[in-house]
């Protein structure tokens, strides 16, 4: 088995791309889902 240390700090391989935009979209969807749940709660408790 190869030493992971030699690869861990190495350059990104083909299956390791920058996913910052995906993380941002997850965060935005998270905020929207929480917002929708809050609106849902408000609507059905008033």
């Amino acid at each position: 088995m190869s030493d992971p240390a030699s690869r861990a700090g190495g350059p990104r391989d083909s299956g390791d791309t920058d996913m910052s935009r995906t993380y941002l979209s997850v965060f935005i969807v998270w905020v929207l889902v929480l917002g929708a749940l809050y609106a849902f709660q408000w609507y059905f408790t008033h």
Partner: protein
Amino acid sequence: MHWIDWLIVGAYLTWIVWTGIQHTKDSHEIEGYFLANRSLPWWAVGLSVMATQLSAITLIGTTGQAYADGMRFLQFYFALPIAMIVLSVTLVPFFHRAHVFTAYEYLERRFDAKTRAMTSLLFLLSRGMSTGVVISAPAVVLSVVFGWNFTLTCLAIGLPTALYTMYGGVQAVTWTDVKQMFLIVGGLVAAVIALILGLPDGVGLGDALHIAGATGRMRTFDFTFSFTDQYTFWSGTIAALFLFLSYFGTDQSQVQRYLTAKSIDEARSSLLMSAYWKIPLQALVLLVGVLLFAFHLFTPPPLLFNKVEEARVRSSASAGELQALEQRYESVRRERGETARALNAARQSGDDTAIAAETSRFRAAEAGMKTLRDEATTLVSRVTGQRYNDVNYVFPTFITTYMPIGVVGLLLAAIFAAAMSSIAAELNSLSTATVIDFYRRFARKEASDAHYLAVSKIATGFWGTFACIVAIYAAELGSLIEVVNRFGSFFYGSILGVFMLAILWKRASGHAAFVSLLVGMGTVGYVAFTTDVAFLWLNVVGALTVFTVGVLLSLVMPRQPARANPQ
């Protein structure tokens, strides 16, 4: 149960075992058996991650919890998407680049063998016992509601799962998880539709949710800050973040799922699938519980859903007390139904004064119902001498009493699927940790792949048998299982602390990590036994204690020779 429902459940079990065993041919060597040769697509891994986390306890217990308490439990999952982002950035690439089989293997490369062995042993102890609980908890409920033999129910859940996991390895686990996930979601949607159709004329879905909202059951957000309350916005976003980081980042039953992905990006995408879908899916599960509450406003619920325990009370010296409670219950139940209808009529009329008055009457009737049900469950506990939770029987009783032929079989198959998908992943990960972290590391360092594969299958069979035995004797082992589960909550946060130390603090040594792990677990145990702090916060205590102690120790202890550093 009708023969058609038996046929559906039987067909499901046969289909799932057949699907699993078919993957035996894909598992000729140990990397294929445990990691599918790191070849699986992100969507299959993502569905497997979600199926593993969604057990039968979720379907039965969480719907019951929502029946009694509403949507509040959803807050528990609020931090999950953030945890998935953090893990995608940190641990996922480390594990993939390190080409490890287990999360704990990485700790030896970073620290030393004893830290790896300790964390892996803690995983084996707690996960081995909890797999038994994952089998026994639904088996207890199903055997009571359907009148099945408890031991046979445990074996019907545990043995087929052990069989296909043993032969097919992780490929079998993942591809059966994919099918089971669709069955579970299909079952939940069928339950929601059946409940909506079961509402009386003039009461639609919106009306039902409004009436449930009048009792507070539609309250999802609780912004109270409290270290002793389990389900608040703050415990769900701060304390649960540590729990999810630990569960998805350091628990082998989850880590192994995404180690099977084709690439780092595919592993990340598999976790992010849960980030998108876990909260809506959990909301759907809780919605079933809230709709069950609405359904039973108009369709009389029994005072006790568990007929076995009810019969025990009826044949005891306290039978008179139960009869008196039932007489009071009948009038309170009728009054609650009438006030619910009156509230619905007032809402439809749009008269604010009438709505306020009927809401007040309905709440009073609901409070009366709750008091009576609490008295009844206390009576059961007193007669049986055991803690008793009646809400676990609400959803299965609904299935068997009100569902049409065919749908009963479908929903039962969904409950079996939920249990089996979790058990399979756990057996597979228990076998991996046993073989990779102990057998191959300490007992037989050099052997052929065929030898390790054979040992891995034996290990899977052993853990399957062990889990079934724990499940069958769960009632007798009750207090022991509770101790083990509590013990598990002691080390979840602490193990996360060790991984934080490995990644965030370059100077941390193996001795410092090992000692700080022990200190962290001791601290969590002390806090748990001497305070009322809710268990979610124990994860924060454990992680921060281990990290802080580890940093301080690494500053005062002599430095060990450098090991592979992930940074």
